[in-house]
């Protein structure tokens, strides 16, 4: 429920920012082309939905790194794929001893396929909000010291929203140079809130991530 409310609040904020961004961009000179491809690198914190996570892994969140690419079907519509890497070290449980014990390394690799709607109406628009979602396959692995690993996969869904800041406008000369040299059209710095859900035997592997990233458009 909290997650739904957060998504709604973020959506409203992004719609407003989109309007502001578009209005601000009207004074800019429109570029002739639009980019078709995007590459993004991101990192941040992942908050698992599992209730007892902190008891076993010592913290209520862990580091997440991600790499994604996308194809822009339209300027406002993008399809893409992304892989994230989430890892933490903690302990397991000893049922006979009724105590935590052992050494467990938890690795989760969610692979997302997504559709993204971006509020971009001008190539020079400073602020671009976006929202999207799609299908997720989550690969998991538990490495337990002196014991057999546990590994597997499961499917689920993902949703994300965020806000992108066009940093080309801050250094226009460099941006033009990059465009002419490597075909890099736009570079954005962005903040993203992302959630995914993927259950295996009624165990929820998903959670919410807060990520900072850089987006390159070609």
């Amino acid at each position, binding site marked *: 429920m909290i997650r739904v409310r957060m998504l709604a609040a973020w959506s409203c904020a992004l719609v407003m920012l989109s309007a502001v961004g578009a209005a601000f961009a009207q004074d800019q000179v429109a570029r002739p082309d639009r980019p078709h491809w995007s590459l993004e690198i991101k990192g941040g914190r992942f908050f698992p939905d*599992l209730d*007892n*996570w902190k*008891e*076993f*892994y010592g913290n209520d969140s862990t580091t997440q790194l991600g790499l994604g690419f996308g194809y822009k079907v339209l300027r406002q519509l993008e399809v893409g794929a992304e892989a994230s890497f989430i890892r933490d070290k*903690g*302990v*397991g*449980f*000893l*049922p*006979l*001893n009724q105590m935590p*014990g*052992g*050494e*467990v390394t*938890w690795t989760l690799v969610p692979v997302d396929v997504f559709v993204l709607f971006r509020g971009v109406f001008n190539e020079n628009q400073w602020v671009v909000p976006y929202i999207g979602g799609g299908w997720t396959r989550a690969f*998991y692995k*538990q490495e*337990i*010291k*002196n*014991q*057999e*690993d*546990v*590994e*597997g*996969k499961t499917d689920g869904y993902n949703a994300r929203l965020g806000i992108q800041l066009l940093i080309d406008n801050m250094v226009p000369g460099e941006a033009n140079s990059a465009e002419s040299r490597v075909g890099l059209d736009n570079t954005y710095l962005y903040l993203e809130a992302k959630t995914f859900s993927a259950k*295996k*035997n009624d*165990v929820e*592997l998903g959670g919410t991530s807060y990520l900072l990233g850089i987006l390159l458009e070609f």
Partner: protein
Amino acid sequence: MPHIQLTGQVNAPAWLTCATLLLPVVCQADELNVPGDFDTIQAAINAAQPNDVVMVETGTWNESLTLASDVTVRGREAARTILDPGIDAAAVSIDAKANATLRNFTIVSGSTGVSVSTNSSGAKLLNNIFNVGVLNDAVTVDAGSSVEITNNTFWQNNLAVTSVDNLVKVKNNIFSNNGTAIADSADDEFISWNCFFANTTANVKGNNSTDADPLFVNTAIRDFHLKAGTDCIDAGDLNETDVIDGSRADTGAYGGGTADVFPYPAQNVSAAANGADSITANWAANLAYLVAGYDVYYDCDRSGSPYDGQTNGCGAPTSPTAVSPGSSTTFTLSGLTPPVIIPDAPVLLQAVPSNQTLSLAWTAVAGATGYRVLYGVNAADENSIDVGNVTSYELRGLQNGVTYLVAVQALNQPTYYIALKVYDSTGNRHESVFSTETATPLGPENASAMSNIVSGLPEEVVPFPILPNEGCFIATAAYGADYAPEVTILRAFRDRFLLHSTPGRALVNAYYATSPPIADFIAARPVLKAGVRVALLPLVVLAVFLLEATAWQQLLVTALCMVLLACVVRRRIFRCAPVITGQAHD
């Protein structure tokens, strides 16, 4: 007559102090010790007053020096006081200074070993070893500077000495394996009593020179003492004597009146126990011509000097025990009585369970040389394992679900510490410093009482969250663990070969779809496990071959297999052929 002893780090000039005191005193030169009084040699030089001596202890000094007027910079032992600035400039500079002296150093780097610039006078280079490399010059002297270069050893330099006039006096030195020994235009009378060998150009120069191999003891460790038989011994100035043995001066860094008198320390010292009460020590011979023998020192209660092994109950021989034959490089310490020291019992702090494992930790005990872990189901001392000198240990291979009793004992095994000194044959019996110490255990280990007993219940760790394993089911069931080497090999084979093709992926998917119930069936039946392991063996061997063999090895084995196959086919044909032929004849 009273003295004023000016010590160490004195900033007020000594001569000023002397001059202002209207007393009948004699001002004695200070000895400024590095690193005792100053961290760097240059700091000591900068603080030195006229007639002071900067005494530098053995070690490698990574600094370049600028000498001062009327100050002597002296190394404790030439062979082991090493100046290694490692820069592309002079290691030592004497620039417009009077009476600066450098003695008893080994200089091993710098674009120039010692550079004496114009307008320096009375400089002295005494009993140094120059080995700055075949691309660099050892000593360069500018025109108009006067220098005495006496009793130095020059080995493997580009130009050993370059000078342009008669103000440079070169005497009693050894020039060996340099590009050029002496490059100058001085008259021969200023170059005298030197020993030359295997220099590329200007090999022999000056008056009363000797052309002979100096027979250095060991250039690899820069021990440039001379071996017996070389003509460079007693080949120096007839009017000068060696401080070491009082004979006519030798040439090189260990000749004359300002040489250091210490033999090079013994090398490669080792020792091993012989039974319960003796230890045999071995070392490399020191072949310097004045070396007469070795003193073997030992102790059993602690490392380092003093080695008073006999007086504190370590055994019968005196310590030191002289080994005098000179060339003998082995000695057995017999009749030793290793002390019996029973250490205190440690406290076992924890036995943390995990899969088939108890992780133990205990307190350290003074004097313990090792620890013994005791464990069992009915009593702690059913089994034991010596785990070395550690305070934690993972006791593995236990049965899950069984409560074990665990304890620890501290162990003490007497250790003998052995070191050598080299001594010479002179009346003063000069000794080297101690060699590197070697330690060897001797006698039985003495165990402490058992520690407190801690129980532990090993069991399989349940990871969080609880998820199903979709790994390599059948192989895991057969080999008993996911981390078994065979399972690891098969998993690598799957990832590297099967998952890269459509048929391979289909095979893997089909395996995952059907194998879990089969694996459960196998896991519950030990006999079946063994059968499956045998059945999987060819696959494991094939996987190892494909994963580990090089392309050439794979090609070779494939060719051999094809040849074998061809032979089998041919045999079958030949076995059948007579029958067919016979039938035809019939």
